[in-house]
């Protein structure tokens, strides 16, 4: 294997794949970074086995040549040293060469590094993306789907499947659902193209992987191609492939747990509510549960209050747009409420209650795509 590459392009790529590499892996080869020279360019791969990132540097793009003198081949290099070496090389171009003995030479200007590589055959084989069973989403929409749901995944391992986001295909709609069993967040979007050709209907993606993906996706990128294999999900952007293992098992059916009728409906301004809860939680945070209480009052007023025995209490009234149905007094986690309100992509919000002991639903006033559900808190 041999090639000559622009250092800046190589550095960008190295930084991308390094995001997947962890020194705490149990699989020795994964402490390394895989370099594959192909006729059309250079592919770098990093993985911690949960997520894998492939970054591709084309030989040539928009008339600019990035890679030259390619002799195909592949090698695995210690990720501990390689990024620093590349960063500190003296010249704009770098020559990387590996011989049959897995000895790697990195040359740039007058400096020459010799590293021991590892056999690329030892590296995990990642699935290839097949365009025929994939679908596309605009990057910003995918990022929204993630942001509006992933915060609700469980962080405890008692029900491991809940640490992931359930991605479901149903009636040409794509559904993201996450719940930690105390609250649930979901977002549903119509898909433009037919989805019958897709080979999956429901998978569970680890929340951690989606958070990483969200960090890597840049807003400017046009679209992401998504495909699912039996054990991995792949997100492909122009030059980066992001792969994640899936959570194994059946995601609980949650739709029947979502109340269909409501007894009290509060319409309000998202921002006002959010700020009010935020203020109330200033004190609630000090106590154990971060619990605030919401009470409906006459003349479309709602009272938000919290009490922390050791600190003090706060009571605040705000006007709702309107309140329909029964009077209500309910306590809930301020944090869950704030998370939910932040995920509502609209100035106006509709909150539907079915009693102090049942889940309530928060939605934007004019669309059903976003649904946030919160289980209340019972005070003893």
């Amino acid at each position, binding site marked *: 294997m041999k090639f000559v590459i622009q250092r800046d392009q190589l550095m960008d790529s190295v930084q991308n794949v390094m995001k997947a590499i962890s020194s705490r892996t149990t699989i020795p*080869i994964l402490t390394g970074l895989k370099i594959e020279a192909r006729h059309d360019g250079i592919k770098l791969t990093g*993985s911690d086995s949960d997520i894998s990132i492939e970054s591709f540097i084309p030989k040539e793009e928009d008339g600019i040549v990035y890679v030259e003198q390619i002799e195909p081949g592949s090698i695995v290099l210690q990720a501990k040293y390689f990024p620093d070496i590349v960063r500190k090389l003296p010249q704009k171009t770098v020559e990387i060469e590996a011989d049959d003995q897995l000895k790697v030479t990195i040359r740039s200007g007058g400096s020459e590094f010799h590293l021991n590589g590892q056999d690329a055959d*030892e590296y995990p084989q*990642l699935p290839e993306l097949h365009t025929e069973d994939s679908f596309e989403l605009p990057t910003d929409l995918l990022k929204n789907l993630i942001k509006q749901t992933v915060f609700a995944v469980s962080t405890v391992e008692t029900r491991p*499947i809940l640490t992931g986001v359930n991605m479901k295909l149903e009636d040409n709609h794509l559904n993201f659902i996450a719940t930690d069993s105390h609250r649930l967040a979901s977002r549903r979007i119509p898909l433009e193209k037919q989805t019958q050709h897709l080979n999956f209907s429901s998978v569970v993606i680890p929340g951690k992987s989606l958070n990483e993906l969200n960090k890597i996706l840049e807003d400017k990128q046009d679209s992401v191609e998504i495909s699912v294999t039996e054990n991995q999900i792949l997100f492909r952007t122009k030059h980066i492939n992001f792969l994640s*293992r899936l959570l194994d098992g059946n995601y609980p059916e949650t739709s029947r747990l979502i109340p269909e009728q409501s007894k009290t409906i509060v319409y309000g301004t998202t921002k006002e509510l959010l700020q009010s809860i935020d203020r109330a939680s200033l004190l609630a945070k000090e106590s154990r549960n971060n619990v605030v209480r919401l009470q409906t009052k006459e003349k479309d007023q709602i009272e938000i209050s919290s009490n922390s025995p050791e600190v003090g209490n706060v009571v605040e009234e705000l006007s709702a747009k309107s309140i329909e149905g029964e009077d209500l007094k309910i306590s809930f986690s301020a944090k869950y409420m704030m998370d939910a309100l932040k995920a509502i992509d609209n100035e106006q919000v509709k909150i539907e209650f079915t009693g102090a002991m049942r889940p309530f639903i928060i939605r934007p006033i004019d669309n059903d795509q976003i649904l946030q559900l919160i289980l209340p808190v019972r005070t003893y």
Partner: protein
Amino acid sequence: MRTWSEMTTIQPLVSKMLVNSLKKERISHAYLFHGARGTGKHELSILLTKSIFCNNKTDFQPCDNCKECHRIDTGNHPDVHRIVPDGQSIKKEQILHLQKEFTYTGLESNRKVYIITDADKMTSNASNRLLKFLEEPSKLTTAILLTENSQSILQTIRSRCQIMALKPLNPLSIKNKLVEEGLSESNAKLMAALTNNISEAIEISSDEWFANARKIVVQLVEVLQEKPDESLLFINNNWMPHFKERRQLQQGLDLLIIWFRDIIYNYVDNSDSIVFISEQEKIVHSSMNWSREHATKVLSKIMEAKRKLDQNVNPALVMEQLTLQIQR
């Protein structure tokens, strides 16, 4: 790596069962391999794992040359998880790692193998979780639990595993293996008489302490024959200082047993069974000193001495008494 046919010579029954399940594509979700050190638990688990993953098999025999086989050897196969206890117990991080793996799909496919060495060191909690997970039949997962001591594995866990009892090796095949490993014929024969554990045998045979122990045993016999009056002195000055620990003393007595058994073999003209082949002349000489009947008695006295040692009787006392009994 050993092949199935090689393993069949060492562990015929278990190898046959495993090959059969490979043939029928009926690999269990959980195996428990139990047997003494050196009986091939680890080799079998690796061979089985390769047979599961190798795409290049001929008659269930993995090629040992493909990417899958290589990576199983180097520990780089991402879907083969090995847990080896760190000292006394399996560490918390190892269990956490296992539990996380249970909830994730595989990296390359959904075929996964877990090999857990010294599974008896896993807490019952951890092993219960392991097996609960394995019971979900949809999973393409196999766990191989290895232990020297199946009794210390909970019954609930044993009942969920297919149990493979690895037989202790027979002395002749051990001897042959030791010769293969480069031991001299006579040394191999002696080691095979002492232990059925290949790795232990190799260890002992290169141990200086053991070489001296062997010498002292032969000397003791000579003293008993030639200068019986000095035998107690010899015990005090030469024997006791060398066999300081009970474990060592037991080994000394084992050697003595072999010696007297050889005398009896000499009487019945079964010279093939004689272990101390390099000392054959001395065995013949000894036979003139101890009658067959007497040698048999001596054997039972040595056994008795060994029991006393186990019961914590003062070692010097046991040895003195034994020497007097051997002299008759």
